[in-house]
């Protein structure tokens, strides 16, 4: 007779600052975990991209080759490649080990706000303020995108991908979901400019942060509003929103230097992390652990749950 499965542990939120990385690359525009969460990428305003082990606090590599600030980056599933987009309107594909630019995709008419790999790292999706999302092929050498999604009426602020869906958030106040399997485009009107979108881990919901200082959780299939989360301040900047590793809480960066977490179901404010003085620019949640990466000004901080004991740390 099998043992009953242990009760799932109560989800914990990252409340404890474990480490601070002084990136030394100007303002950190984005901090992103890699696919397994062991490493992270930081995008600097000094045109560099850095690879870190945030858990040990070691800088592993610096990637230079962008012509202007790097605004977003993403790692491939096998950690062999990195894609990044910057204000130089280019999307770059990097080789992680050599640190060289493998390819540079040019075609956007404005700065590239967001980049994403698809699951197999065969396509890079890049969203730009030129209101297009471009799908770049990593497999062939063609210089032009596979497809340009130009349905948005204003700049694209965020792009996320699932196995067969492309989720875009645009400044025109709409969350668009392109379903490749269905051949359908669903456009959900939010009204206020969207700063960030993300899928929930179960792929059923869509979280959208907008400039009216509100996070909205929408049902993916019907577009119905499942939850609304307020309390933070987001009126000017492109701030990230995240869901935690178990989809129990939603989090969002704020312009008042905090990171807020709400209970997903109840909508009540669960936590507000005082990160620093400046605007919290970017957030990244670890895919498996209650571990949060927060970028503010020139540094990145790593937050863990209370019970976490940092090993090898003198204090």
């Amino acid at each position: 007779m099998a043992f009953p499965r242990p009760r799932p542990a109560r989800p914990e939120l990252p409340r404890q600052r474990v480490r601070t990385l002084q990136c030394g690359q100007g303002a950190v525009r984005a901090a992103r975990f890699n696919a397994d969460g062991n490493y992270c990428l930081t995008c600097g305003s000094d045109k560099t991209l850095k690879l870190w082990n945030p858990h040990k606090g070691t800088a592993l590599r610096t990637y230079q080759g962008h012509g202007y600030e790097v605004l977003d980056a993403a790692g491939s599933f096998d950690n062999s490649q990195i894609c990044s987009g910057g204000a130089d309107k280019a999307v770059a594909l990097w080789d992680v080990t050599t640190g060289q630019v493998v390819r540079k995709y040019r075609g956007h008419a404005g700065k590239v706000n967001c980049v994403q790999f698809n699951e197999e790292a065969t396509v890079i999706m890049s969203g730009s303020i030129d209101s297009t999302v471009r799908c770049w092929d990593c497999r062939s050498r063609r210089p032009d995108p596979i497809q340009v999604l130009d349905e948005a009426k204003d700049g694209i602020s965020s792009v996320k991908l699932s196995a067969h869906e492309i989720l875009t958030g645009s400044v025109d106040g709409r969350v668009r979901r392109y379903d490749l399997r269905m051949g359908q485009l669903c456009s959900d009107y939010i009204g206020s400019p969207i700063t960030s979108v993300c899928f929930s881990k179960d792929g059923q919901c869509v979280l959208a942060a907008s400039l009216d200082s509100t996070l909205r959780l929408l049902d993916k299939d019907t577009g119905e509003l499942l939850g609304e989360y307020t309390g933070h301040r987001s009126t000017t900047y492109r701030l990230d929103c995240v869901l935690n590793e178990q989809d129990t809480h939603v989090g969002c960066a704020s312009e008042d230097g905090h990171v807020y977490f709400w209970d997903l179901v109840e909508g009540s404010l669960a936590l507000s992390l005082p990160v620093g003085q400046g605007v919290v620019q970017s957030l990244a949640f670890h895919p498996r652990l209650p571990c949060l990466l927060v970028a503010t000004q020139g540094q990145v901080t790593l937050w863990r749950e209370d019970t976490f004991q940092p090993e090898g740390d003198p204090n």
Partner: protein
Amino acid sequence: AAVESSDSEEEDLVSYGSALQPLQEGERIKKPVPLQEQTVKDAKGRYQRFHGAFTGGFSAGYFNTVGTKEGWTPSAFVSSRQKRAGRTILGPEDFMDEEDLSEFGIAPKDITTTDDFASKTKDRIKEKARQIAGVVAPIPGTTAFDDLIGPSKITVGVDLLRKMGWKEGQGIGPRVKRKPYRQKPDPTVKIYGCALPPGLSEDSEDEEDEYQPENVTFAPKDVMPVDLTPKENVHGLGYKGLDPSQALFGVSGREHLNLFTGGSEETSNLLGDLRHSKARKLGITGQAFGVGALEEEDDDIYATDTLSKYDTVLKDEEPGDGLYGWTAPKQYKSEKRPEREFKYIGKILDGFSLASKSSAPIKIYPPPILPRNYRPVHYFRPVIIAGNENCQLQKALEESTGKLESDPTQQSRHALNAAQRREQLGETELKGPTPSILEYLSEKDRERLKEVKQASEKQIKAKIVSQQSPNSRFQPASPEDAAHKWQMLLGRQLANAGSSDFKPFAKDPEKQKRYENFVKSLKQGEKDTLERFLDPNMTEWERGREQEEFFRAAMFYRSSNSTLSSRFTRAKYEDDVDKVEVPRDQENDVNDKETAVKMKMFGKLTRDKFEWHPDKLLCKRFNVRDPYPDSSVVGLPKVKRDKYSVFNFLTVPEPTTSVTQATNEKIQESYSLNKPKKSSRWDISDKEKEKKDSISELISLARSKADVQQQPPVPATEECGTGTSETLPTVVIDEDKNQGEESGRPPMDLFKAIFVSSSDEKSSSSEEESDEEQQPTTSERESETTKQVDVPDSSSSNVQESVTATTDSGISSLPTSKQELDATEEFGPKLPPAFSSGRFCKHLDRKEKHRKIRERHKTKKERKRKKEKKKKHKKQKNKGKHKNKKSEKDSSSDTTNSSDSHSDMDTTGLSPKELLRR
């Protein structure tokens, strides 16, 4: 004895090498391999070359052909899918031969000391010292072996010094201010004959001091380490043996080999510098090793003696101060000499000397003094009419103004033909066979011709003069002249004008082609070929004209290109195309969504679904089946629409007109349910469904904007007005009245055409639409509209007339008139009905007629009335829009519905014509 002697001989002899095999009996003596066949081969059997591809030789593949003896073997295919990360990056080595990588190639793979770890080859001082030691040592050259065992690191002291700013070749100590650090005289400068005494050079140094700027400091002079080697040999004092470096390295030809020189220091310098300037590797080169005692000369026998080695002018030794470049004032010592004062300063080339006499100074003329009343603005002098008496004057004028008018008669002498010149010179005509046709004419005829010719010439002349006088600059006298002028004008600007975009003669492709060639040649600056591109079939005059035209076009393009192109982007739609591609599915009304968002009614109201076609490749990359395997569309499906159609500017959902067969069929089905005999032409009018929406939109817009603005009545608006008022209560149609009104009011068919609705209308979120879903079928609406025309004007219109007659906005009128146009297009006779009956066709014709008549005979009164009706309706509609659906229903819809049910029962299966009859 013989044997013994041979033995003893063998004992005495010393044998080298291994003995040959003793010959076998009967074996033939091997032929020696001839020299040309003694070749070296490498491991692969190729002839060994001693140079790789990068060092002058070449050896590729197998005997310079392919990879192996068997031929070319392709490398096995390896799927990049698995080995993506392991992609090999080709380096230069992949293109190099083995020879290049061998010991003597350009990239030897052997383990060697790299520069970082090389022994202190750069340590010049030590090296010099060592060389001195070597020279002084009893066995010259022994110290060369020190290199092999020397420490492989720069000493800490040197390293420290370097970090403190010391550079090799400089002395150590504080920087000296006035006394310049002087390098030794350039060792490459030979001194023939007597060298100057050292004292003199000291003097010259002192003199130079005056020349130095105050703020320049110099590194102190390098001090040679004092040689403290004790004299152990029995050579004479100062004897230093034969210099091995000179003897061995083949440079002695440049140098007097004197064994005894003044100071050991000097020689050592000489040695050191020489070695470095030559940068020779130690080793034995070309010449024989060593110098034979009997050899008279060990100079390089192939060296040539050039004149430049010798001084041609008596002068002092060159300062050789390396601090100055070639621009340094080398000759400033001779400044005292007067005639050289403002002479060439700098190094004089070998073989040249300064001129003793200066050339005459260049005269500089002062600029002319401007007259008091001078104005720097050019004005054109009056043009003097050409004539016999004042032609000289005119010529002078023209010459002074700088532009020679080209007059056919006054052209330069090259333009004149022989006969004219002869005439001017007063010469007699040459006798001989005349080619002129005039010769064969009679005297009279000739005279007459001459007269005519002269008359015409005069006329032409007069004309030209008159033309030239006002705007002579713009009137090209001859095409060639014009071309020249235009070219001058355009020449440079055209160079950067891309001609691809600008197509001034797009309508005439032939001409456009000619124009493009023309511009191209103009850009290249070929003047003569300009004519070539003009149509040879045209007359001279036409060609001239065309050329002019082309020039102007090019000019125009250039100017607009440079000034405007930076500010404009290319048109999204081409101008001459009246259809544009617009997304088939439009989004719903944003206002509705906003209200929905405010009410937090997310879901259906805020969601728009579109058919979206992903690229095939994208599907493949995402491992997703292509949802539309048969379609070639990528992105949102687009429809060709009228460019200026209202629908492009409205955000109303608009179902397809021509897109999918499926939808059409569906519609057809639905129609056939209602009216089985109905023509399928109505399918097209799917679009019209939307017109309703758009019209209501427009009306609401117009209403909001409605002001006291008087408006010229437009018939189209009325139609819309009446058309939209379908919610008014229905009354039974009076046939007679209907007929009587026929001339004045729009026919039913039009309404039907515009406002036809279908039961399968796509569900949409807007309430407005949900209203319209309750709309009756066409037949019902016909009855409604006719009734409306009759009924309400007496009751309420007069009350509102004063207001409504004035309240109409241009916004509503303009687009609706366009709508009408659309209607005509759609319902014109062009489209063949799919299931039309003869009756229906007739009916269509009648429709057309009706409309024409109506448009002609519309009276103002009616217009007013209708407008007012429309207003009323609009009000109602808006009310309905603002969520009192119920009240609306109470007032009107109930009746409508009831009548609907009536007419529905009646009209199913009847053609519209029959309906009208009733």
